């Protein structure tokens, strides 16, 4: 096991690869840690892979993962996390907008005992209308819904303890919600300001997704996180809602019959029975949910188990 892995997903970044590698190496070398740099080529169509490969041939500490095709930023991050060998993982953008100079401060925070360190872009160099405002709104929403105020969910520069990040499910476009989910599970999170540079090369490729996607994902995370740990309870409460609707309708029907009014009984009884059927459906869905949760390999308390704090580096640094 190494001490540190720096992960950067790359998608059509031929101008940046070499600069990025040099910038990271320049910062990481003096730390005297056993480190690796992990580039994940997300199916680039330009020379990104070729250049990265050349660099990797000269430096064994640079590893390059090449995807078959473009799968997106979250899968790229997930692949990096799956294949990293370090105890601490640093993730960053592949487009040089993050500054590797910030890395040492992240490591310090992890050594202080935090599980996750998130950067927030102090002076963000992006377009105001298309990038900054939607991201402000998204951050505010995510904070409101999850109850965890993360200043800048969209900033890729983050540091994780490997065992913590590996316990968090990462799929679809979840990378934006890592801190929120981790904190729901009880991780200690620190936030530090980072430098942010304007794009030097090319266009922005992973455009901040439109707000509706964030909204949907957010809703999903909220429901799933609260549902997945105790499905029976949640489906049960939905069932009781339907049951009370059914009972109310029945009561209304009886009262209505006593008043001897004219009209069809079928409609009211039918309504009550439909709601009754929904009650039963929810109960069975809850049972199914329990079953899924039991057979699944994610338990929210696995995160609690690995809360034992950071054990420190083993190599190199001692002599220094």
């Amino acid at each position: 096991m190494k001490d540190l892995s720096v992960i950067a997903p790359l998608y059509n970044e031929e101008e940046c690869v070499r600069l990025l590698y040099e910038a990271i190496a320049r910062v990481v070398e003096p730390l005297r840690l056993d480190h690796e740099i992990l580039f994940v080529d997300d199916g680039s169509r330009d020379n990104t892979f070729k250049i990265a490969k050349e660099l990797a041939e000269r430096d064994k500490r640079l590893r390059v993962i090449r995807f078959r095709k473009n799968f997106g930023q979250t899968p790229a991050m997930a692949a990096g996390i799956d294949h990293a060998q370090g105890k601490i993982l640093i993730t960053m953008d592949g487009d040089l907008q993050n500054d590797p100079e910030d890395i040492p401060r992240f490591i310090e925070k992890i050594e202080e005992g935090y599980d996750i360190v998130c950067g927030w872009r102090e002076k963000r160099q992006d377009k105001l209308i298309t990038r900054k405002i939607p991201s402000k709104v998204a951050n505010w929403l995510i904070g409101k819904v999850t109850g965890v105020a993360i200043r800048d969910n969209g900033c890729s520069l983050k540091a994780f303890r490997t065992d913590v990040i590996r316990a968090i499910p990462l799929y679809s476009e979840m990378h934006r919600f890592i801190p929120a989910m981790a904190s729901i599970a009880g991780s200690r999170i620190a936030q530090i300001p980072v430098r942010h540079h304007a794009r030097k090369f090319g266009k922005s490729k992973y455009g901040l997704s439109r707000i509706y996607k964030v909204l949907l994902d957010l809703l999903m995370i909220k429901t799933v996180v609260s549902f997945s740990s105790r499905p029976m309870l949640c489906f049960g409460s939905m069932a009781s809602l339907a049951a009370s609707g059914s009972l109310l309708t029945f009561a209304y029907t009886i009262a209505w019959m006593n008043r001897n009014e004219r009209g069809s009984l079928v409609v009211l009884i039918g309504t009550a029975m439909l709601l009754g059927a929904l009650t039963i459906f929810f109960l069975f869905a809850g049972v199914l949910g329990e079953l899924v949760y039991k057979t699944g390999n994610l338990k929210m308390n696995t995160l609690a188990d690995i809360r034992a704090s950071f054990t420190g580096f083993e190599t190199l640094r001692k002599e220094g």
Partner: protein
Amino acid sequence: MESVIELSVIIPVVERYDDIAELYGLYKKGLEDSRHSHEFIFVLDGDFGEVLAVLKRLIAEGEKIKVIQLARGFGEATALTIGIQHSSGNVILTMPAYQQIEAYEIPRLVESLKDCDMVIARRWPRKDSLLNRIQSRVFHMFLNPVSEFKFHDIGCGVRVFRKQVAQEVHIYGDQHRFLPILAYKYGFRVLEVDAVQSQKDTLQRVYSPGIYVRRILDIFSIFFLVKFTKKPLRFFGILGSSIFAVGFLILLSLLFAKVFQGVALANRPILLLGTLLVVLGAQIFAIGLLGEIIIFTHAKDIKEYTIDKIIN
């Protein structure tokens, strides 16, 4: 050189089959022209006594054929998967148990694999009846927007692919048609190559209604596999909540009429419709939620990417 098998030919026998001895002769001839060392594997998906007898006779005559007999019918995709597990070549060629393309096209198809991962044959020009062509056209019209790749003849069982494709793309049951679609989704390079259609493949075919229903279900499941496997709640959630909303509006207007206009609820059959929609919407949403919980709790097992190479 002789001992290394380059190409494994897998012929699943499912439902429809021609004279196997003749078919084998034709395929063998076609393969000998391609000058790759090869092996033949027949997978009998269920009880095909007649075919088994023919194959046994061929083996007795000294032909090198591997025969796998499945205990019962599991479906063509399962038969293929089992055949592939028992194969030793790095390149797999699947051929149907009936003639779809002329056997002399085989070498060209195999050669086409050079710089891609999967070659699928397209029967072109079509010689079969207008009805067949229309059926196929309609099917692909619905399929292609879903599959994100312009397939013309997904029903052709002649496919050449690297073994790796089969190792990463898992199919079962009746999903053999999906193989190219899923392979493409997983990032393999797929190529469609025109091949001359066999004269024997030109019979007009009208299937039982059940088959058409199955094809429609196929499209639906591909749609789900390609677009929403990882986010069931997006699909079910939107569908469920819109149905729920319609039902809810109906109920709201009924309540309004009851409270302010004094219309008795019992006289409004539309109350049933409103409730029904609310119930249906809630159920669809709940199913989406269950799906999402499945993905969420199994996310560590599901890889959302396929890796081409790792350096160092």
